């Protein structure tokens, strides 16, 4: 096995391993890795700042939605109140109208009844007068007594 037979190259292998490992370690430690770390940190910071900004915006949007909903419910309440008011008003008006009409009708009925009664009375008295007249005429003709002297 060359690994154990070529002993003469052990020192050479160790030497070059040391050289390249130290070079690699030094360059990585002082140049490459800090560069990568700084870059990643910067990006993380950027992302984090954007996330916090996003949170703020979400909060803002939520408050706007709340505001909107509150206003919406207020408007709905107002609308239903207006509708109720209008209904009440219309109901009242119609009731009033019905009442007024009923009263008017009743009044007219009464008036008509009164008029009828009056006309009945006048008609009766007229008939009475005519009957008196004709009776007076008849009596004066039968008895030859002047009309003026007859008093029924």
């Amino acid at each position, binding site marked *: *096995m*060359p*690994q*154990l037979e*070529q002993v*003469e*190259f*052990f*020192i*050479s*292998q*160790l*030497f*070059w*391993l*040391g050289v*390249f*490992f130290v*070079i*690699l*370690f030094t*360059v*990585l*430690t002082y*140049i*490459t*890795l800090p*560069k*990568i*770390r700084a*870059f*990643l940190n*910067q*990006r993380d910071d*950027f*992302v984090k700042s*954007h996330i916090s900004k996003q949170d703020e915006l979400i909060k803002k949007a939520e408050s706007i939605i709340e505001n909107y909903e509150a206003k919406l419910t207020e408007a709905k309440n107002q609308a239903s109140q207006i509708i109720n008011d209008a209904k009440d008003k219309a109901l009242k008006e119609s009731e009033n109208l019905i009442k007024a009409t009923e009263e008017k009708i009743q009044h007219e009925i009464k008036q008509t009844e009164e008029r009828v009664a009056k006309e009945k009375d006048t008609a009766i008295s007229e008939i009475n007068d005519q009957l008196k007249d004709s009776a007076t005429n008849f009596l004066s003709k039968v008895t030859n007594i002047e009309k003026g002297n007859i008093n029924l």
Partner: protein
Amino acid sequence: MAKGESPLKQFEIQPIVDINFLGFDISFTNSALWMTITTAFILIFFTVPFLKAKKTNSVSDLYPSRMQVAAELGFNFINSLLADTVGKEGKKYFPLVFTLFMFILFGNLFGMIPYSFTFTSHIIVTLALAMGVFIFVTVLGFVKHGVKFFSFFVIPGLPVYMLPLLIPIEIISYLSRPISLSVRLFANMLAGHTLLKVFAGFVSALGFFGILPLVFIITLTGLEILIAFLQAYVFAILTCLYINDALHLH
């Protein structure tokens, strides 16, 4: 693979440039070449996408480029691995775990390229990495807890008469950490690559029926890529667990 070549030939170290420093042979070999490629690739892969990266000023800047997403994926993977095993204190050790994971991962993955060399298939390399982790973790434990670190070997809540038996066991298991850590990675790489080469030999040997081992090789390559990732992950997560042990003892 040429006929009669050993399936282990792929692990042979071949010097590219002979270098001798103070009597030590530190030749630039194929192993060193692939370490160079791995290191360069990792540095380019993770640095370049962020060089041109714009500052995030508007929402449209939030979209990263494709290369950036790939690099971030690796970054976040190790980040969450450390956070899950060690917690907040683990952030300090992020570069170490990241370097280890990426070095082993891309070492393993580049080893899957035909004619390439897998430096993680050499016990000396994996042992060096594991010993590095072991020494780091032990020193970290002593720095954090001082002499109290030895209480790590005493399992709380055990009857006293059990301690003479269990303390040596705990010490042995602690000392065997670097061995298990290195051998696990080394053996996985060795076995996978050897198996691939053995079956590759069957393809040419069986003639027309070589299609069967060929299908097997294709399937096995997928499995090997999974293992390449898995072993890097195991190495990284065990390092995290050892760091956690050193920080919090029990």
